[in-house]
């Protein structure tokens, strides 16, 4: 017997297929020029991982195999062919059992149909979802009282119809069967009434000394309702204290404005108006509730035909962030050196701008940084009134204050940055608020502690032993969605109601109030924060009544009718905070700056919130866990990102478990060699390392630990970065599952990038342009031969197509989540991702270009291209994938027999096969998450992007009943609708005026792998960069 060339992995073995470790050889050079050959990429070459950049495709794990590991999985033990021979006849006989009657299906109608309800047509309710206290207006698609999809609210000033990835995945939290269901006192079940009676007695006792022993620990909040409840509690208990805690505090934003302007203010960056932007570690393009609108403003300025031209973005940061990926120039700098950089920039500008005289850097900057500062300073000074410096939340208050001083000197205040009073209730959710509570707890001054912050035992800094402190509190109450680390150490645990299950309100970053309305009865009897706080008041009003009473003041004429309008529109008009024009207190900033000291040298630990699960509050959300990180493409894990230079020096490769030690506290985290990362810092995201059950993952019936907990490395004093990191190799390996290198590019340029200069010089570059051009009948179909007969699309009313503007795309991955929610896409779990079986229809590809030390990044959402001559179609033996008359590449699940020929023949590798029955064994609660308009696929079926055909058909039927054509923009795919930067467009090519037709005719257009003559309907627009010639 010969050894098979491709060893077959065996289904059911517990261990995943470990990709062979790729060690970086000592002689390896990270210099440019050793990149895999790629012709035609505007002279650039593109690569996706350090291994690939060094050694080309050959280095990729599994490269010697034609198919990804696991593609040949066969049951263990009994040979398949023997089994078939023996069982053939039995199966034929067993087929007769199909002749029995199927049970009759029941149809249940309403007793009373709710007003306006048309069963079969969904409602869209306006509500708001909160992230770190900041609300975002959303519309929830609700089928017969069951929310199944979240969209941004187009009338909301920040959302404008878009959301980030977490908001899309929120429904997986709502329908999480592992949510807590029982109100408990020390582990024993109790009722809500029992709790309130217990609290009433307690409150009476506490009232005697004015509530001096009563404490509240809440998360960040902007809710006017919570604010009014706090006031009412403070009236009854004047000595009670409210503390706010967040693992991602924005304290430096408010402390920075307090230092610069005398009082805490909320800055609003109008990035669309800025020609030159400098980000001091500000990740303002991450699509969070407070930055969604910044994405659109920035993206509008990345199109060459914008009347004011392209903007230019400089990013200074230790790690590679989403914003860094969009930068025209990046400078790698430790966070500890950021103050010094900001002061150097101020000093540089101070040479010409009088407002900045007197600033000086505590330590001179090195060669590269000095050159960078000089160029940036010159660029900023030349764009006075249209320049902007944005400081990051992770940076110090002084960095913020200096940035505000620079902005003031550049004339940015009032033009590219405005200020309002903060919308949040607490401007301190970090150290100062936290320390006061910890001191009281240590002193035993607390009798009753009401915790509504998310899981503080888990998120607490490593220097505080919160479980021990909480054990000393006689009456600790915790409200949470899950039975978690905190619920185990408190006296009372209350299951929380999801925001989709309760009344409330929230304000956006710029102050607009949205009413949070319940879309469904509490699934597990949850209690809202407002109800819990109400238990400490004498009156027993319901949150809904309190809410109405509170907002009656906003009404201009008739409150009741206006209230209905607010609910249906999702915003309360006239509630945006008024802009204030603060005056800079330059001398205070100068004095503070004068006390800045040079940062100590050494390796730095940078802690960041995770791009997917934030501070860990979404750690149980399997959609987000399986979402590949926008930069590293790692799923189900956090990693210690190390720069390529440091990795080489230490001999560290991906997956090596590292021991990170700061001030005597250590954790183990697997290494990830991150191109473009600073070599003086190591970045880890927190929120991982919890032992958890996770929804919808087939292999994980038992709770497992996902990722590594790095909260022990944090201190309240240094929540974001600390120098003095010691890094040690443990010698052990850890399996990291990432999606980006599941396929190979064979050195072909897939995502293209060019500088604006190159673009203007050669707007038509024939080697990357498709030979088939719009409107060129002569070339159409004849440029390259095809085995498929040409279809005449002119007879149909629509010719569906899509375009992706890569200049706009930041890679935030909100589209991946939107697609997952819209199209009932299952999650598969980490081990299956490791086998290349991830099911997300959108693969957010990320390519690097240039040297590993400082690469540029291109992101490219890749999904079914709906090729006019689709290679998948002519290899399907059962016609399960065929072309529609309007140009869609249809996937007919009920015909598919699972040969996977189509996937093999797809040059874009966008087809996903159901290797297992992922949707089997769903609980009733999980089933409620399914979109009834989309088939739930079974095992053995191929699936892929459908251009949201269910939306096309629904919109078509509405339009046809009204005897009109579908208008441009009336129909949006899920990915297009959510996109914060409007990078995606969808529509019909028959009308040359549609946005998609215009983008198809754009000179930047290119078809991916056009040389194969697939004639994709989805086309891409090259990414345009605007580099500063001075920085070369």
């Amino acid at each position, binding site marked *: 017997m010969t050894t098979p060339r491709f060893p077959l992995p065996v289904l059911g073995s517990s261990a995943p297929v470990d990709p062979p470790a790729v060690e970086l050889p000592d002689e390896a050079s990270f210099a440019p020029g050793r990149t895999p050959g790629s012709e035609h990429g505007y002279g650039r070459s593109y690569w996706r991982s350090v291994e690939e950049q060094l050694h080309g495709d050959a280095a990729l794990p599994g490269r010697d195999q034609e198919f990804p590991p696991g593609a040949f999985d066969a049951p263990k033990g009994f040979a398949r062919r023997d089994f078939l021979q023996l069982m053939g006849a039995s199966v034929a006989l067993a087929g007769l059992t199909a002749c029995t009657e199927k049970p009759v299906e029941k149809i249940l109608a*309403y007793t009373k149909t709710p007003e306006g309800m048309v069963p079969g047509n969904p409602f869209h309710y306006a509500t708001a979802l909160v992230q770190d206290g900041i609300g975002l207006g959303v519309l929830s698609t609700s089928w017969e009282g069951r929310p199944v999809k979240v969209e941004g609210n187009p009338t909301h000033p920040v959302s404008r119809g878009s959301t980030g990835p977490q908001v899309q995945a929120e429904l997986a939290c709502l329908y999480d069967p592992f949510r807590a269901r029982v109100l408990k006192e020390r582990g024993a079940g109790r009722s809500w009434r029992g709790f309130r009676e217990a609290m009433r007695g307690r409150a009476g006792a506490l009232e005697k000394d004015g509530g001096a022993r009563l404490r509240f620990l809440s998360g960040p909040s902007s809710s006017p309702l919570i604010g009014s409840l706090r006031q009412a509690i403070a009236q009854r208990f004047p000595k009670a204290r409210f503390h706010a805690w967040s693992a991602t505090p924005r304290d430096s934003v408010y402390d920075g404005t307090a230092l610069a302007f005398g009082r805490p203010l909320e800055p609003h960056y109008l990035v669309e108006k800025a020609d030159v932007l400098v980000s001091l570690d500000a990740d303002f393009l991450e699509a969070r509730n407070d930055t969604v609108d910044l994405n659109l403003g920035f993206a509008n300025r990345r199109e060459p035909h914008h009347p004011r031209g392209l903007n230019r973005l400089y990013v200074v940061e230790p790690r590679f962030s989403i914003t860094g990926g969009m930068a025209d120039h990046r400078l790698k700098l430790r966070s500890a050196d950021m103050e010094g950089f900001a002061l150097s920039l101020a000093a540089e500008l101070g040479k010409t701008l009088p407002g900045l005289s007197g600033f000086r850097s505590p330590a001179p900057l090195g060669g590269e940084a000095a050159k960078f500062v000089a160029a940036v300073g010159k660029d900023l000074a030349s764009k006075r009134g249209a320049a902007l410096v944005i400081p990051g939340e992770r940076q110090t208050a002084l960095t913020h204050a200096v940035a505000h001083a620079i902005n003031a000197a550049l004339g940015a205040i009032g033009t590219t940055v405005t200020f309002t009073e903060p919308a949040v209730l607490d401007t301190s959710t970090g150290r100062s608020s936290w320390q006061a509570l910890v001191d009281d707890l240590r002193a035993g001054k607390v009798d009753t502690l009401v915790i509504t912050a998310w899981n503080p035992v888990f998120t607490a800094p490593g220097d505080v032993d919160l479980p021990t402190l909480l054990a000393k509190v006689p009456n600790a109450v915790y409200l949470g969605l899950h039975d978690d680390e905190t619920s185990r150490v408190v006296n009372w645990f209350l299951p929380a109601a999801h925001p989709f299950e309760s009344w409330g309100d929230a304000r956006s970053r710029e102050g607009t109030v949205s009413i949070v309305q319940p879309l469904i009865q509490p699934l597990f009897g949850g209690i809202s924060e407002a109800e819990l706080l109400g238990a400490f008041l004498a009156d027993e009003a319901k949150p809904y009544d309190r809410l109405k009473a509170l907002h009656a003041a906003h009404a201009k004429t008739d409150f009741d009718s206006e209230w209905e309008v607010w609910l249906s529109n999702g915003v309360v008009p006239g509630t945006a905070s008024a802009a204030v024009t603060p005056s800079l207190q330059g001398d205070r900033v100068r004095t503070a700056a004068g006390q800045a000291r040079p940062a100590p040298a050494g390796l730095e630990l940078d802690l960041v919130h995770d791009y997917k699960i934030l501070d860990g509050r979404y750690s149980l959300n399997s959609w987000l866990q399986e979402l590949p990180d926008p930069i590293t493409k790692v799923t189900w894990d956090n990693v210690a990102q190390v720069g390529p230079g440091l990795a080489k020096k230490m001999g560290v490769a991906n997956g090596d478990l590292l021991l990170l030690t700061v001030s005597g506290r250590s954790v183990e985290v697997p290494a990830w060699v991150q191109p473009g990362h600073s070599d003086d810092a190591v970045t880890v995201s927190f929120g991982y390392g919890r032992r958890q059950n996770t929804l919808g993952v087939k292999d994980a019936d038992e709770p497992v630990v996902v990722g590594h907990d790095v909260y022990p490395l944090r201190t309240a004093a240094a929540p974001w970065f600390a120098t003095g990191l010691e890094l040690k190799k443990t010698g052990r390996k850890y399996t990291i599952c990432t999606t980006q290198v599941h396929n190979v590019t064979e050195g072909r340029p897939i995502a293209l990038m060019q500088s604006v200069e190159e673009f203007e010089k050669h707007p038509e570059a024939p080697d990357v342009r498709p030979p088939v051009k719009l409107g060129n009948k002569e070339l159409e179909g004849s440029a390259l031969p095809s085995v498929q007969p040409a279809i005449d699309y002119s007879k149909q009313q629509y010719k569906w197509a899509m375009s992706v503007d890569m200049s706009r795309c930041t890679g935030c991955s909100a589209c991946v989540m939107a697609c997952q929610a819209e199209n009932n896409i299952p999650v598969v779990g980490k081990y299956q991702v490791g086998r290349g079986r991830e099911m997300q229809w959108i693969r957010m590809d990320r390519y690097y270009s240039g040297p590993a030390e400082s690469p540029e990044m291109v992101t490219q959402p890749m999904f079914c291209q709906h090729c006019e001559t689709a290679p998948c179609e002519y290899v399907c033996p059962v016609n399960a994938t065929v072309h529609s008359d309007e140009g869609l590449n249809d996937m007919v699940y009920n015909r598919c027999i699972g040969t996977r020929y189509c996937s093999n023949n797809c040059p874009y590798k966008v087809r996903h096969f159901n290797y297992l029955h992922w949707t089997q064994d769903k609980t009733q609660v999980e089933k409620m998450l399914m979109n009834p308009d989309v088939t739930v696929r079974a095992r053995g079926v191929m699936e892929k992007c459908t251009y949201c055909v269910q939306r096309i058909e629904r919109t078509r039927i509405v339009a046809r009943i009204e005897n009109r054509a579908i208008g441009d923009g009336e129909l949006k795919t899920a990915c297009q609708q959510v996109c914060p930067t409007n990078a995606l467009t969808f529509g019909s090519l028959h009308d040359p005026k549609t946005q998609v037709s215009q983008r198809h005719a754009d000179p930047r257009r290119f078809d991916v792998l056009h040389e194969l003559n697939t004639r994709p309907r989805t086309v891409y627009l090259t990414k345009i960069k605007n580099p500063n010639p001075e920085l070369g």
Partner: protein
Amino acid sequence: MPLFPRWTNTVSRLSGVLLLALPAVAIAGLMIVVRSTWGTKQERDIVQPIEFDHRHHVGDEGIDCRYCHYTVEKSPYPGLPATTICMSCHAQVWNKSPLLGLVREYYFKDRPIPWNSVHNLPDFVYFNHAIHVNKGVGCVTCHGRVDQMALIQQQAPLSMGWCVSCHRNPEPQLRPVEFITSMTWQPAPGVDREKLGAQLAQQYNVHTRTSCDACHR
């Protein structure tokens, strides 16, 4: 004397024929069975929890289909009447009838009536009532003479071939939308059915599609 008698030739030929014919007959038989009314579950009485009689409500009383199936013009689903719709009449009419005891019970308990589904499409098929009704396909065309059914039966085979046959040539099935719920509408005498169909197809802008994505999503 040959080793085998002559009749064995016949036997061998016969077995050869049978060997070929048997699978063919078996396959043909199965195909006939799935296409038969038994295989498609046509014309089968489905017993309902409440003895609701369409003969009486549609035939005798002449109640329009849309009085109860009120979402048929705007939703994929025709809409099963909410119990309030039953009670809108039966609070006054036959309000003591033992036949309606269950309706009253479900109504006052606020529980849905568990009707048995008669027309079952596979889960991967998305049929939309609204577009058909708005483009001139009458109720009776697919559902048959419900005014003559004591228990509702499935009249049409609901097979893909049946769907596609009409989608390929819809004109003979069209009628003016004013008569969409009529059980007895016929073209006026002397009117050419073919011409009328073509005219209605144009008037209603009927545009049937046979691409897979029209029904499968």
